[in-house]
């Protein structure tokens, strides 16, 4: 699915044309989210991530892809830090997004580095102290670039069947007969 064209078109355009598809309609309202993320489109509206941040369109040199990938990994792990999750899961989420949203993500990483250099004198990946990185990220949390990454991570990490078990969540249960005969009431650490 290619949503790249929507980033330049997420304004309040009025749609009263019946031929406009539902997805296009939603995307034009600024709900566009990478298609590989299950549930992403409307889910962003649930968690309030629909702020249509103004992206500056000044010319920015696109970062080299290795640097971009490393930056996004560090950023991802600062957004939802989990020792229990291997890096490869974070990496895949952000790399996939970088392919789908080349311009937004590329410009976003360049912007992040610029901010980091201004404030701490070095690019983001060279900032070794987590609270320093988090402070920078907090300052851009309403930016479309940050929201896109965060939303992708929220679905990629917490709506991911391969990772459920790390949290003690068991996912789908109807196919196993529910819990009626499978630990429904096994809490044994509280005295009556």
């Amino acid at each position, binding site marked *: 699915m290619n949503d790249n064209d929507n980033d330049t078109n997420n304004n309040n355009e*009025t749609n009263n044309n019946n031929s406009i598809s539902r997805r296009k309609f939603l995307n034009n309202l600024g709900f566009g989210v990478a298609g590989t993320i299950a*549930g992403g489109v409307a889910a962003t509206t649930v968690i309030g991530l629909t702020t249509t941040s103004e992206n500056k369109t000044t010319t920015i040199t696109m970062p080299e892809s290795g640097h971009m990938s490393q930056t996004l990994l560090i950023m991802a792990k600062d957004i*939802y830090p989990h020792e229990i999750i291997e890096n490869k899961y974070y990496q895949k989420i952000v790399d996939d997004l970088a392919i789908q949203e080349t311009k937004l993500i590329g410009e976003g990483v360049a912007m992040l580095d610029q901010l980091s250099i201004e404030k701490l004198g070095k690019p983001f990946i060279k900032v070794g102290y987590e609270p320093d990185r988090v402070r920078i990220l907090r300052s851009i949390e309403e930016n479309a670039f940050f*929201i896109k990454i965060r939303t992708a991570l929220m679905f990629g990490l917490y709506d991911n069947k391969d990772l459920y078990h790390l949290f003690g969540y068991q996912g789908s*249960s109807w196919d196993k007969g529910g819990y009626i005969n499978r630990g429904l009431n096994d809490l044994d650490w509280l005295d009556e």
Partner: protein
Amino acid sequence: MTNITKFDLDDEDLVVIIGSGAGGGTVANELAQKGVRSVVLEAGKRFTLADIKNNEWEMFMKLSWLDKRISAGGWHHAKNHANLPAWICKGVGGSSIHWAGVSLRFKPHEFKMKSTNGAIEGANVADWPITYGDLSPYYAKAEDKMGVTGEATGTPDLPESSHTKLHRIAAERTGMTFANAPMAINSVPRDGRPACQQIGFCMAGCVIGAKWSTMYTEIPKAEATGLCEIRPNSMVLKIEHDENGRATGVRYVDENGNKKLQKARIVCVAGNSIESPRLLLNSASKKFPDGLANSSGQVGRNYMGHVTGGVYGVFPKPVNMHRGTSVPSIITSEQLNKPNRGFVAGYTLEVLTLGLGFLSAFLKPGTSGWGREVSEALENYKNMAGVWICGEDLAVESNRITLHPTEKDQHGLPVPVITKTDHNNDLIMRNHAYAKMAKLYKSVHAVKLYNLPAYPNSHNMGTNRMSEKPSDGVVNKWGQSHDVPNLFISDGSQFVSSSSVNPTLTIVALAIRQAEHIAKLVKTNAL
């Protein structure tokens, strides 16, 4: 389902029902059982049980009403849920696909909030034109229809889960009143539907149909009579009327995008508390410039959800809240009207499971909901338990549904703007509930507590309220418009107060009562 009944667009003798959820679906079946013919126009598609999956976000995407809506006013939704003020469904069965199944009756005093507490500054509190006694026999019929567990039908309560056990013990330790929730979920096979297997995911739709939903109860039963036609994918645009001010038909867009006019003898509006007033406002005409049925100016006003929020605790050992029904039990000690607490009306605390996906979104909604605090909480998922606060939200005139002046939806209709600001009473009540929950959870060794703000409203009420006098509300005690005699409101928008409990049982009881009234009017040619 073989649905062969088709009615003609020019058939002037039909009841046209807009919406197929708890209100519309029930009215359709009740009318059909009494020999009254109807067409149900449903904006959403038709799902089967095969469409239902055990995945929160997948089902949210599949079932939710996602046409554009705008949140405005002082509530946090204006920022954090800017386009999702309400979490309700679009499909045959409406939000009865999504509801958790909690089936509590209103308390008698909740029908007369004005005489109970007098006028309240900044609120538009009123008594219902009916009493608990008037509705009581219909509550019994609704409970029987829906198979509500416990005393109502003599069927057993659903079995205890660990999530319930923790709350029961905590309530015992803190002297709070605890109960298994009366649920419209079969605890034994009943009405051709199986018993609950404690699957969880109740609000993603019940995979096996153990939970009552018009999707697979009222709707197919109505169709089986040959007296009811369901038209899915049919978005209603406008209700038409004649020069005498009687509704004559309904304009809608069919599944192929063609505009149609279905003639009607009677129109029942049951599109939930945002779409129903929106449709009346969009049906403005020369004769009714402020919207259909709106001589009182109350259409769209008094929008109520519940005073709500969530409280999740982290405990020293596993709770596994995801095992079993989504709302297994309730705490009712704070339900009564006790103004000495610093607020009027009351609230219940409903034990509520959120899955990992939803918890990651709702634990700290908004743009700042990331970082170590969130990820550490989620790593404790297994050891978490939680409740949802369900308190009476006072009617306030300025909390309302209006039409956006310029923005249009995919059908060319102005999008609805949902403006809501908490009344001071709401704030005090919510804080009272947070404090009670802290005490409750500490008694069972909670190591950490999270107070969650309100979720998008699944309970939407009050925007076409009932009233004795035409100047005070939109419909009379039968849900019949004061202005347009053959126009009825059949959903929760006719509520006068929101109560401390979930609205569905009351919507169904009102729908049964209304259908009985309509059938009488039709048979005596009074309408």
